C-alpha cells in the first residue's frame, strides 16, 4: 500500500465526526456500510492516485459518538448534508455502500444538487420490487459477516480484514455498528417508503452496482432504484456477493472510474 490514510475529527453541523481522508485529487465522499468502515482497502488504493477520499465514520459506530436525536436514516442523511454544506464541498461525487447507499439516496432526495455523481453499491433504502432485504440483524455477527461475500475462502482481502477468528475488539465494534443500525433502521427494515417518491426528478448521474450473488440486498432493490431515478445505469458484477469492492476490486475500480469520468 502506498497511501497512508489519516483519521481526523471534523467539527461541523454541531457534531464531532471522525473522518478518514486519503489519496489525492478531486474528492469522493464514501459512505460505508452497516458493518462500519473496514479500513483502507485495495479498491481505495486503486483509485487513490487520481482521487482523494473523504470517509465519515458513522455516529454510534465506535469512532464517532452516537447522536441521540438521529433516529432514522433520513435524520442521518440530514446531518451529513449539513456537513457537506458547511464544508462547502457540494457538489461532490459519492459512493455509498449498502446502508451507505441508503444515506446517499436520502441526501440526494432532499438536495438534488448535492452530488455530481452518485454510485450506489448494493443499496438499501427502497423496498425491493421483489424479494427481501435479508434480516442480517437476525443473524449471528459471524453469519452476517460471512453472508456479505459470495465465497469467503476465495476472497483474500475479506480474510485479511476480518481474520480467521473474531477478536473481542472486532466483536465489540460489530456490535456497536449493528446496534446503531438496529436503532435507526429497525422499522421499516432498512428502507423508507417515501424515498422512491422523493427521488423522482433527481437528475444526478447515478450508477447502481450489484453483485449477482448478493445474499443481503436482492436484485429487486436495484430494479426499484432504477424505477425511481430516471436514467440510472446498472453495472452487474458476475459471481460476486454484497461487496464487489472487496470481492472484485479491480473490476469495481474500472467500473467506478469510467462512470465518474463520464
Amino acid at each position, binding site marked *: 500500500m502506498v497511501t497512508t490514510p489519516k483519521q481526523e475529527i471534523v467539527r461541523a453541523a454541531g457534531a464531532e465526526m471522525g473522518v478518514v481522508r486519503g489519496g489525492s485529487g478531486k474528492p469522493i465522499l464514501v459512505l460505508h456500510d452497516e458493518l462500519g468502515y473496514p479500513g483502507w482497502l485495495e479498491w481505495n488504493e486503486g483509485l487513490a492516485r487520481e482521487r482523494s477520499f473523504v470517509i465519515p465514520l458513522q455516529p454510534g459506530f465506535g469512532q464517532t459518538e452516537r447522536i441521540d436525536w438521529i433516529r432514522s436514516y433520513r435524520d442521518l442523511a440530514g446531518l451529513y448534508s449539513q456537513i457537506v454544506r458547511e464544508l462547502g464541498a457540494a457538489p461532490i461525487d459519492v459512493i455509498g455502500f449498502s446502508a451507505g447507499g441508503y444515506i446517499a439516496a436520502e441526501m440526494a432526495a432532499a438536495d438534488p444538487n448535492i452530488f455530481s455523481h452518485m454510485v450506489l453499491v448494493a443499496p438499501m433504502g427502497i423496498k425491493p420490487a421483489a424479494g427481501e432485504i435479508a434480516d442480517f*440483524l*437476525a*443473524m*449471528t*455477527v*459471524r*453469519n452476517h459477516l460471512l453472508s456479505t461475500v459470495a465465497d469467503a475462502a476465495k476472497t483474500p482481502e475479506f480474510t485479511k480484514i476480518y481474520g480467521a*477468528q*473474531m477478536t*473481542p*475488539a472486532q*466483536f*465489540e465494534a460489530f*456490535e*456497536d455498528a*449493528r*446496534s*446503531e*443500525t*438496529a*436503532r435507526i433502521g*429497525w*422499522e421499516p427494515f432498512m428502507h423508507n417508503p417515501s424515498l422512491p417518491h422523493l427521488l423522482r426528478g433527481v437528475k444526478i448521474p447515478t450508477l447502481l452496482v450489484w453483485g449477482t450473488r448478493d445474499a443481503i440486498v436482492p436484485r429487486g432493490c436495484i430494479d426499484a432504484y432504477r424505477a425511481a431515478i430516471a436514467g440510472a445505469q446498472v453495472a452487474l458484477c458476475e459471481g460476486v456477493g454484497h461487496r464487489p469492492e472487496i470481492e472484485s476490486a479491480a473490476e469495481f475500480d474500472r467500473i467506478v472510474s469510467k462512470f465518474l469520468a463520464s
Partner: protein
Amino acid sequence: MQIGYFTERPYRWLPEEVILKNGAFFAVSNKLYDRERAADDYHYYLDENCYAEDLGFDVVALNEHHGNPICMGSVMNVEASVLAYRTKRVRLVLIGNPLPVIKHPLRMAEELAEIDLISRGRLVTGWVRGAGSEQFFNNANPAYNREMFNEAHDFIVQAWTRPGPWRYEGKHFHYRHVNPWALPYQKPHPPMWIPGTLSPETVEWCAEHRYPYIGLGTPLGPTCDLWDFYADEAAKHGYQAGPENFGYMVATAVAETEEKAQKIAEGFVYGGGQNAFSAPQFTMPPGYNSKAAIRILAKQQTSAWLGISGEKVREQMHGGDTGEIDYTDVRRKLHAALMRGQQNMQVIVGTPKTIIPKIKTIMGTLRIGIFIILSIQGPVADDERRTSMRLFAEEVIPELKAYAKESGILDPFQRTPGSVKLAAGTKRAPVVNRELMPDLGK
C-alpha cells in the same frame, strides 16, 4: 414468607427431536400446533393454578413468552384475568409484562387495573424487558429496549396516580388523552416485583425504585454478589435492604421416591430446557445488551452473569457446530447438565424430606422473603405435576414458613421494601449469609 407456585405452562406435545433439530424452542414452526390439545392445556393450567391456591401457596406467578412452545402464556393478562375471577385468596404475581415488547403502556395500565379490581387487590405486577427473541417476534427495536422499559414504567405509574385527563408527549410514547376509567383497586397502585437473570442495570433500577428483585434460577454465587450490589445501591438511596427486597425462583420437582422425582425432573432439560429457549442469533439482538455488557461478553465469551450462556456468545463470534445431531449424545449431555444443576442447587429434586434442607440453605444464604418454585417442564403428566405440587405444599411449605420465622426473614407484605431508613455514612447490614455455602467462594 411468601411462597409461590409458577409454571411456564409448557406445550407438551412436541417431539423432542423437533426442538433439538431446530436448536431451540423459539422458531419451531407452528404448523405443529395442536389446537385441541392446546385448548385442553389452557384449561388444565388454569385449574392447576387454582389448585395451587387450594393447596395453600401464597402466590401464583405467571409470565409470558412469544412464539415459543416452552411457555403457552402468550398473553398472561388473559390468564391473570381468569384467575382474578376464579381464585379468592392467592396473590397473582405477574413476572412480568414485557413493556418494551408490548409497546402500549396505556393499554397495559388499563388491563392491569381491571385485573386488580376483579381480584379485589391481589395483583402484584412485575415488568420485564422481554427476551431477545421477543424483540424479533414483536418487531420491538432492541436498541430502545431499556429506554422503552423505563419510559413505559414511568408512564404507567403516572397513569395510575395522576388524575386525568392529561396529555403525554414522551420520547417513545405519545397519548392525547390519558384518563383511564379503570384504576387499580390497591392504592396508590399494585406492588411491583421485578424478575431477572442478574443484569446489573435492572438490579440498580430495582434498588432505586425499592422494588423487590427476584432471581430466576440464577447461580447462587453471582446472586449473592448482586444482592450485595442491590444493598449498596439501596444504601445510596437511604435505606437498608432486607429479605423483603429479595426473591428467588428455583426449578423444583418432588415425588414420593427419589427415583420418581429424578424421572420427572428430566422434563427440565427436555429439548435442551431453558438453555434452548432461543438460538444465539435470537438471544442477543443488536442493541439489546448495554455497551458495558457487550464489553464484558466480548472479553469473557461467557456470562451466566447476564443470563446468557458462554456457548451462545461463542457461537455469535465464531459459529456453532453444524454437523449431524447425535440425539443420544445430546440427551446424555442434557442429563449431565441436570445433575450439575442439582449439585449447584439450581434445580431441586427429591422427596420432601431430601429437598427441605436444600431449600433452607438457599433461603438462609440469600435471605429471601419470596420463594417461588418453577414447576416441572417438558411432557410430564398432569397427575405427576399435581403430586409434586401437593407434596411440596403439604410437607415442605410448613417447614419453610417455620424456618423463615425463626430466621427473622420478613416478606414484602410484612415489611415494606425500602422502609428501613439508613442514615448517610452508616455502614449497611449484611444481606446474604455465605457461611451456609462455603463453596460459593466468597
